[in-house]
Every structure is written in C-alpha cells, then in structure tokens.
C-alpha cells in the first residue's frame, strides 16, 4: 500500500488487504433502482429523490426517468478510484483509501471545505448542508470489513451488479465485454478504479463522463475558495489547526491541492 501511494493519501485496511471491485453490467441492468433504494436502506437514509445524488442518495441510475422506462441505464456513484483525488486534496485527511477498495469520507473529521467535491472527476460527492459535511458512497466499507458484499450488490435482482476480488471481477468483466461486444469503463479512467462498468454502447449514450487515464486527475477547486480558506476562518478554527498540523507533518500531501498540474507520483 505504501509503495503504491507513498504518503500522498491516507490509507487503511478493513479486512485482509486484498483489493476488491464492484462490477456493474449495464447490459443486464433493467433500471429498477433496487440498488439505489438498498443503499438508502442500508445507510438509513430518508427516502429522498432517487433522481439526484445527494447526501442521502449515493447512487443514481441515469437517466432520471421512471424505473424501467429507458433502454439504457448508467450507474452514477463513487468509482472508488485507485488514486482518489478527493483524498489527495482533503486538507484534514478525512478521506481514506482502503486496501480492499473503498474510498471513505470520515464525517467526524470532515470540515466541509468542499475541495473533494470539486476534485472528484465524476462529480459524485455531495454536501450535507445541514451538518456541513461531504458525503458519498462508502462501498459499504462496514460490510466489507465483515467480508460481506456492498448492499447495493446483494440487492440487484438481475445480477447486473457483482462484487469480488479485483482480479476475478476484472476477468469476469472482460468476459462479459466480449460476450456483449461492448467495452469496459473504469479500468483505466483516472488511473483505474474499483468499480468496473461493462457497457454495450458508447459512453456518450449512457451520459457517462469522459475521464482521462491520468492518476489523481487535475482538480477544479476554485482559486478564490482556496484563498478564502487560507485567509479567513471558513471551516472553523479547529479545522484550520488540523490542516496546518497535517501540512507540517505530511507536506507531500499539499502537492495535489496547490499544484494540481504537477504529477508527484
């Protein structure tokens, strides 16, 4: 883990350290949104709209039309990047990349600076404006630590979602890719992710973002916001002290935040 990440992002282990992957097979998906509701159920989120990502809705199935009423369905949620830019820009190290795959925001630590929201190449991090914290899919890290599948995966009634060790899922994805005559998405994007999509049609038809292969892709945090954080009390004094302390002990982690065009890896 440390070889792969140096000290660029916080890392951790949940179970056995073996990387895992969620496999989404768009050719099998029927757009029933049982994964979306299962996510809400497991995380005890209120039944807010399933058409938009929010702090209480961590997956959307696109397009935003009634269940089943589209010929193609795309999963829109955290891709659990192998090189997560959200974690790299977090000034308080609230985001951890776990060896098993999950990229997890710790709400206890999050100060609501929104950097991760701007940094995510997929735009899948949202903010809970009531508690002022960033929020997104955890890949059910709590379940993975008990060696269980993410809840969305076990809910899928047509096996369009699968979960397992990365090499097994990658092999399966490639097999499905050949069977449906499609292509994979998520294997190279942002340097590779731990959510693989098998797509039958071109990305555009699913409304999926084109994301380059660069690890830790360049972020879009507004300069004004960063200046504001440096010179005002935004996000609280406690957060500032923690950020300052971490900047001193992990200076390398400032690279992606302040020099996003520079490849430090």
């Amino acid at each position, binding site marked *: 883990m440390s070889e792969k990440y140096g000290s660029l992002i916080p890392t951790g282990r949940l179970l056995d350290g073996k990387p895992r992957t969620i496999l989404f097979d768009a050719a099998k998906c029927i757009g029933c949104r049982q994964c979306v509701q299962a996510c809400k159920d497991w995380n005890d989120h209120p*039944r807010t709209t399933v058409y938009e990502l929010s702090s209480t809705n961590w997956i959307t199935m696109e397009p935003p039309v009634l269940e089943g009423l589209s010929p193609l369905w795309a999963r829109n949620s955290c891709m659990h990047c192998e090189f997560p830019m959200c974690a790299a820009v977090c000034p308080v190290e609230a985001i951890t990349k776990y060896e098993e795959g999950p990229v997890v925001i710790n709400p206890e630590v999050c100060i609501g600076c929104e950097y991760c929201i701007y940094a995510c190449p997929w735009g899948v991090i949202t903010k809970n404006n009531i508690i002022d914290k960033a929020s997104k899919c955890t890949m059910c890290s709590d379940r993975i630590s008990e060696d269980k599948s993410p809840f969305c995966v076990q809910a899928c009634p*047509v096996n369009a979602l699968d979960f397992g060790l990365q090499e097994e899922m990658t092999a399966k994805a490639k097999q499905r890719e050949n069977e449906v005559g499609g292509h994979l998405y998520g294997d190279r994007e942002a340097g590779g992710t731990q959510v693989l999509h098998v797509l039958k049609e071109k990305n555009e038809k699913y409304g999926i973002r084109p994301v380059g292969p660069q690890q830790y892709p360049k972020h879009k945090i507004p300069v004004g916001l960063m200046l504001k954080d440096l010179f005002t009390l935004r996000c609280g004094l406690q957060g500032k002290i923690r950020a300052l302390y971490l900047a001193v002990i992990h200076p390398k982690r400032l690279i992606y935040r302040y020099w996003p065009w520079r490849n430090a890896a």
Partner: protein
Amino acid sequence: MSNASELFPQRRLTRLPGGYMGKILRVDLTTGSMKDENLPEEPVLRKFLGGQALATYILLNELSLKATPYGPENKVVMMTGPITGTGFTPGGTKVTAVYLSPLTDHTLGRGASSGFWPVYLKATGYDGIIIEGAASKPTYLSINDGRAELRDAGRVWGKGARETEDLLRQEVGIKDAKVMCIGPAGEHLVHGAMLCNDYNHNAAHSGGAVFGSKKLKAIVVYGTARPRLHDREKLIDAGLRWRKTLQVYSVEDRKDVGYARQLGALPNLNFRSTLIADHNRGFDQNRITQRPCFQCARLCPWDVEIGEGPFLGKIGHFNGGAEWMDTFWNLGVKGNATLYLAERINDLGIECSHFAFGAGVMFEAWEKGLLGPEDTDGLRLEWGNVEVVDRLLEMAARREGKWGNLLAEGPVEVAEAIGGDAPKWAVHTKKGTPAMHDWRPHFGQMLRELVASGGMKPQGGGTADPPPDLRYREKWGPLDRDDPTGWPWSNVLAEQYRQFCGLTGGCWFAQMHLKPDGLKSIVDSFNATTGWDFDLDEALVAGHRSMILQSIFGTQRGWIAEHDWQNVGPRFLEPVPDGKYKGFTIAKWLPDMVYEYYRLSGRHEKSGRPFVDTLTQLGLEEFREWGQLD
C-alpha cells in the same frame, strides 16, 4: 362497536410497534377538511395488523348500514402494513383499499396494489388514508411529506391512467412522485373500474368507480420518511431468507401465454374452449423489460415493446398475472393485438374480467344470431375483431351508447338486455366477475373464486399439498380430482395465510407458500419489523380474523353464504368443454363444498355468519350481534 374517537386515540397510551408510521390521514372531500388520526392502540394493531383487516375494521366501525356504494357516505379506507416499505424484504409493497362494493351493493369491495405508491404513501408519514364524502368537482389529493392538500383535477379528468400519472407528476413538480389514479372508467362509474398506479399496477374490483363517484381522480404521494424497525439485523436476515424462496419470472416467461399454461386452460370464445394454440404468435419478437416492484426480486411487472405486425412499436405496461391477455383471447383475439388491447384496458382503468365476460356474451350472442348489426349500431361483433373490441373498450370506459353503458354495468346486465339464453352464458360470481382465467379445471381455485369469505374477490386458493411450513400438522394430500375431500380445508388454510401476508403489507404474489420457509420467513420478517412474537399459528389466526371481518361486512348488508353458489353465472359452472380436463366440473360437489368451507372456517354453512364461539376465539366479541348462535 367502538366509536371513531376510541379507535384513534388522541394520545397513544401504548407503544407504537415497529414498521408503522403511526398516523392515518382522514380526508373529507365534501368539506375539503383533513385530519390526522393516530393509529389505534397496540392491542388493536396486534389483532388486525394492517392492510385489509385493519381497513375493514375501521370501515365496520364507521360505515353506515344505509350507505350506498356511490353515495358520499361510502368510504374508502386504504391501509398499508408494517412491512410495507421497509426495503429489507421482497413483497413489502402492498396497500389494500376497502369500501362498499358497487358490484354487489352489499359486500366488501377490496382492491390491493403494489409497485411503489404504497411505499411512498408511508414515506409521506401515513400508514393509510380514510376517504369520505364527495368532491363537487374533479379533485386530486397531493401528500408531500405529511402535507396534504386537495387540488383541482380538471386538467386530467378524462385522461387515461398513464397520461394522468405523467401530468400530475409535472403539476406537483416532483419527477419521481408516485401516483394512484383512475382512468375514464372510474370517472364514468364503470362498476369494474380499477385504481391504477405506477404504470404497471392496478387495484381492481371497483375501487376506481368509488373514487369516481367522489370525483377523486388521483392521490399523489411523495415523502422521505421511513418506519422505525424493531430489529433491523433480524429483519435483514429474514428478508434474505424470504428472498431465497422467490420463484423468479424470466423475460422468456413473457413470451408465452402466461398463467393459462400453468392452469392447462386458456379461455377461448367466452369460456367455450380451453385449448392453447398459437395465441402468443409474434411474442417472440417483442422487447420485454422487467419492472419489478419496490425491492422485490420476484420480477412480476413487465413492459412490452411490440416487435412486429400492425402494432409494431406500441408499448404496454403489465403486472405478473396474465388476466389482460386472457381477456382478449376470450374474445377471439390472438397475437400482439392482445397486448395492444391489454394496454388499452389498463390505461382506461377497467377490470379486465368485467369487460371480458360482458363483451364475451355480446360476441356469443352475435354468433348465435341474438344480436345483429341493427342492434349494435353497425358494430360487427365477430370473434377476434380487434377494431370492434377496441371500440367497445372506449364505449365501456365512457358509458357511450346502450352497449357501452351495459358493459359498464357488467355481464349480468349485458346478458339480461340481450335476453333469450344469454344469461346462461354470463360468467359471474355474485354479479361481479372472477379473476380472468379459466379456473374451471381446478377444485381449489374454483372454490376460492366462489366463496371469498363473502367478498367479491378471493385471495389464496387450496393446494393439493400443504405448504411445507405447515406439514408438521397438515396431512391432507395429495388431494384427488375426483374427490372433494380436503379441498375446503385446504382453501380455508390458504385463505388464512394469504390474508396474513396481505395484512403485514406483504404481497401474496411474493408469498411462495409451496416452498420451504415460504411462510415462516414472512412471519419472521413481520416479527423483526414490529417487535411482536407471532408464530405461524397466530399468523393464521390473524388471517382468519380478516376473513371473518369480510363476511361480517356482507352479513350486515344482506349477504348470505348461499349466494356464493346460487348467484353464479351458469357458464362458470359448466363442465370443462375440452382439453385434458374435459368434463370436469366443481358443480356436482356444490353446495357441499361451500357448506364445508364455511363450517370449517367457523361460520354457519347457509347464513355465512360466524358462530359466537368463533367470534370469541378471535377476540371479535364486539360483533356478537352479527354472529350465529347455533
């Protein structure tokens, strides 16, 4: 009987069990007023659970004996159950509506539906709704996270169910709001009008007509609440066990003839043949999309995009059963025209058997020369004439002309108007219509269709083998086709567990009673949700209680058990005309089977009244005056 204020406490004195939201919305359409009622106290909930039993108990408490089906005094009580919308079980999707039925004028009307609407009703913060009075103009009820309001439905009055859903979602400005509505059939008081929701779902058996009489076009729900769960972890385990029992529909299943295959009988030419031929021609070219209910892996609902022929590209939205196909096969239609018409009937909001048996008599009368073009304004009622069937659907839904009006009334009225032998050809039970399949070759299903505890529509139906979960005490099978022994008890038991499933807010299509754990996993899901400790026996008692309430409702208004076998369309009791079950009829075992059914369920065989002992055992002493003393 307790009065309303006792039933709905001002302040709860007992704990609210898990799974319930705790409130019922009372809407008076006459005055436009609305009121939140607290759910009854815990002992009452433990008796009636939810769904049909709790709704019927409320109705029995509140509905005047002088009420008429279409008068403003009729009420619609809609109830979910504790497992509706927890998300952790399959089949936790049910809402049941009860009211005085316009089909009979004196029995309980019940319609139940699944999909998403029931789940989102609970998400608004309500377990159920009591609808009373009648609006002076077309109205719809919108409930958004506990805020309810009545709105003008002028814009959607006259529209089909699909368009109504879409327009109301736009109007409330919530793209994923859930809509339950009526089509033109409900507006025009077609006796068999349905409530339609979430495109693929219908609550049949005339609730749509009662909505229409109240000028209530729709109920739009949207909310974010979820019920408190007693033991989430146990619920997840039980829900997974339940899920493992499910028999899952495949896309290929939707290219066959549906339930007729299982029954070994497909209704042809107004129940005059049961043979399965090329009815599903062209189905293999259709594109099928499965559209399951909320968190259920049974995959009943499905959409079709017709892939060939004159209806190429047409879309249809259906649920698991194949009643809509059997409807048009019964009129001689075959192939994808069937699916086109099926979508039409659901969009118009007519219960399919109501139309199928009425139109069936008309087509048969044409064939036999009792009707000619001079009687039908030139409509040629030839078997399989798709255009004529399509036209009749529209006429029935809007009560256009003499025949549209008669079709809206029902098959008995159609047959009487034709005269001659036509009344012998009408398929009906107590003037309503059985679910649209040819059940005649099967003891269990036929008995179920006839009795239904004095209601119009049954749940369950006896099986040849006891459910594995009950084998520890039931040893009746296999029941024999030439011997009715055992079938009545089998039916009593099946009705009990089907009822129980519905009362919990579960869908009996997801109750796999013939699989091991098919019943127990539901009881365990229910216990984990509520915190109660039901065993299977108490579950069956709850189901039994619901059956008794249903028949008390009829008893109060003049129904007797004798109607169940006497007031039946002769065609329904004719021997199976052909096929492998040729010659079989339940008729030779009547009325003994009906008598035995009522006796075994603790009711008098002729009056259908529950014995006082039965009432005492079930804790229903308050209905003693409607009981049978000896």
